[in-house]
């Protein structure tokens, strides 16, 4: 039986239906071909394009670690900032591009030189030209609003030093790429900088971010705690600046050490600089405390005295004729600052007699003098965690000349102020050679550390016997301040131990030591019986009548110690000549009322 095929749409011509079906088939074939083209032939290329449009793998900059003082005060911190750059838009004419840059002149405070540099970059058709880096985000927002073609912004970090010039030589500074260039910023750059991370950002068709995935976690830089106390640092800097300016000196430095731990409580240099405006001039950049070497003069006698008692066994009851005022040896003449009489061993150092010191050094002998200076760490770096430390000069014994005995009075030897400080610190710790440092693992105010460490110096090498130390501190170094050259360092109510130094500077033009140019210094510790601070003050080339260490550096030492001991709530252990007791004051106020 033949079944006649019926149209499913009765009344509609079969021819037309066939035509429509053919058309649909062709249309579907076309779509199929296009789909094969998109999904198979161009798959790789198109997938890449899609990923490019919808996904961004971006670098995430690590935040540089913060730097704090020992009390947790912020000394350095990185905050987000924006950088502006120019990348030419093809259809923009050159004049319009330059005009756009001029629109930024006032917003970005661009100088004429900066503008010239940028425009020259544009004229050379450079694909990328920095306009200004590390601008505040508010300024960046203003630029963004202007929608200038060819002007783009990227996010970066900017280093801020909220306390300005304070502790600048310790902190150092960073360059425009956030890399440490000086101070702890350089020394601890690897720890501070952290590690870059990566993030995958998914965007929709309108380029709006809707999903972010961390591909590689950013490692922020480690925070750093310095041993300095911002207040003590400020006191030191202020007193130093006043002294350098008052005496018209070239430079000056003050370093304060916590004797038992070797922690630097303050390190001040003048001239200084603002690390927010890094780099400074070369002169400002020098960290005098560790990078300036000088002939220390009489402060070196603290080593000679140690050699005399510890190695040569010279009795403190011996006497030396210093009445002539000068002594000639090895083709050189050494003079005292004034004519003295016959002096006992302690008096030689109390009055800082060069003649007496040379006579004592002659008894000690070159070898033992050299040995003691070497033991005290001269000619070697102290190992402080700061870059660029100088080791100073201590000539080997076989290169000593006949005149080299002058090492005993601080000539023919070069030392940094920090080396002198470390040498005096041997007496403050009862004979230990402590290594100075500027960082600590966690914050701790000075007052908290003091009781814990007072008797904890045994981890350092002992280089002097307690007997020698006690004897020299009591009979020599406290007497220097009580009745010797360091009278100006005396503080009412406190026992201070110290030694002055006035070194003539060698004039290369004259090829002789100058009578007009000196390095004035004072090194000491306080209180003498239970030291809390060891300090060195060095002032280079003070101008005017006052030239001696006792006149120039000792008053600076006194004022800093007085203020710091008050700040640390350390009352005098003996009654000051002038003093007020709170109870007396209260009684007086009651009577007056």
């Amino acid at each position, binding site marked *: 039986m033949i079944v006649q095929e019926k149209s499913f749409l009765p009344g509609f011509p079969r021819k037309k239906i066939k035509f429509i079906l053919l058309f649909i088939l062709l249309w579907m074939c076309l779509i199929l071909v296009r789909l094969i083209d998109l999904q198979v032939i161009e798959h790789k290329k198109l997938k890449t394009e899609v990923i490019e449009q919808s996904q961004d793998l971006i670098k995430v900059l690590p935040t540089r670690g913060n730097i704090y003082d020992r009390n947790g005060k912020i000394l350095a911190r990185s905050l987000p900032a924006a950088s502006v750059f120019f990348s030419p838009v093809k259809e923009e004419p050159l004049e319009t591009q330059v005009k756009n840059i001029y629109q930024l002149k006032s917003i970005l405070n661009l100088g004429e030189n900066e503008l010239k540099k940028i425009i020259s970059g544009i004229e050379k058709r450079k694909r990328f030209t920095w306009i200004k880096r590390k601008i505040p985000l508010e300024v960046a927002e203003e630029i963004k609003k202007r929608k200038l073609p060819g002007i783009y912004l990227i996010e970066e970090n900017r280093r801020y030093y909220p306390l300005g010039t304070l502790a600048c030589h310790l902190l150092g500074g960073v360059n425009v790429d956030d890399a440490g260039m000086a101070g702890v910023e350089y020394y601890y750059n690897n720890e501070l900088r952290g590690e870059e991370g990566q993030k995958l950002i998914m965007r929709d068709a309108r380029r709006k971010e809707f999903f972010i995935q961390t591909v590689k976690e950013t490692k922020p830089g480690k925070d750093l705690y310095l041993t300095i106390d911002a207040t003590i640092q400020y006191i030191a800097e202020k007193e130093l600046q006043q002294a350098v300016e008052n005496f018209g000196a070239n430079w000056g430095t003050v370093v304060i050490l916590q004797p038992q731990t070797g922690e630097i409580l303050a390190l001040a240099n003048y001239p200084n600089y603002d690390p927010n405006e890094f780099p400074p001039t070369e002169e400002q950049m020098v960290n005098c405390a560790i990078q300036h070497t000088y002939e220390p003069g009489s402060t070196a006698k603290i080593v000679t005295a140690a050699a005399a008692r510890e190695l040569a066994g010279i009795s403190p009851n011996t006497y030396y004729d210093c009445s002539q005022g000068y002594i000639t040896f090895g083709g050189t003449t050494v003079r005292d600052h004034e004519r003295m009489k016959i002096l006992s061993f302690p008096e030689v150092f109390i009055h800082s007699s060069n003649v007496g010191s040379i006579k004592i050094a002659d008894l000690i002998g070159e070898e033992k003098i050299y040995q003691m200076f070497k033991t005290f760490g001269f000619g070697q770096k102290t190992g402080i965690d700061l870059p660029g430390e100088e080791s100073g000069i201590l000539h080997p014994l076989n290169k000593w000349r006949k005149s080299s005995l002058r090492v005993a009075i601080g000539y023919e030897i070069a030392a940094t102020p920090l080396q002198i400080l470390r040498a005096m610190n041997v007496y403050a710790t009862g004979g230990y050679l402590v290594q100075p440092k500027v960082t600590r693992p966690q914050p701790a105010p000075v007052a908290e550390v003091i009781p814990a460490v007072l008797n904890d110096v045994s981890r350092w090498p002992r280089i002097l016997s307690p007997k020698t130390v006690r004897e020299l501190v009591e009979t020599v170094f406290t007497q220097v301040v009580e009745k010797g050259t360091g009278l100006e360092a005396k503080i009412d109510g406190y026992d201070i131990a110290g030694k002055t130094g006035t070194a003539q500077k060698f004039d290369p033009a004259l090829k002789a030591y100058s009578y007009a140019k000196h390095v004035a210094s004072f090194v000491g510790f306080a209180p003498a019986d239970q030291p809390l601070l060891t300090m060195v003050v060095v002032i280079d080339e003070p101008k005017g009548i006052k030239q001696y260490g006792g006149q120039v550096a000792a008053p600076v030492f006194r004022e800093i110690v007085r203020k710091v001991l008050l700040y640390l709530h350390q*009352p005098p252990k003996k009654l*000051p000549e002038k003093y007020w007791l*709170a109870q007396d004051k209260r009684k007086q106020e009651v009577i007056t009322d």
Partner: protein
Amino acid sequence: MVRKKLTWKQVVIGGGVIIMLLADLTFYIWYQSESVRLGYRIHELELKVEQLKEEIKKLETRKAALLSPERIDRMARENLNLTDPKPEQIIFENLVEK
């Protein structure tokens, strides 16, 4: 060809399947759009958290600058007319008896 008439049962089952499929599809679309919407929201909030963290940092830094010893010293001298105490002006609470 005679078209077979569908029973009520078949119509209900077929309709149910279609409704279920449509419901699934609707749920899936809703789920996808909600995920994207929440993605936007999370991203916005994450940005806000970052901004606030940065703001805190900025304020802490500003506080540190305002409390700098140099500024406090200057203000004490210029605004409050304070001066350094002389040694004899210092009153000690506890000192050994004379």
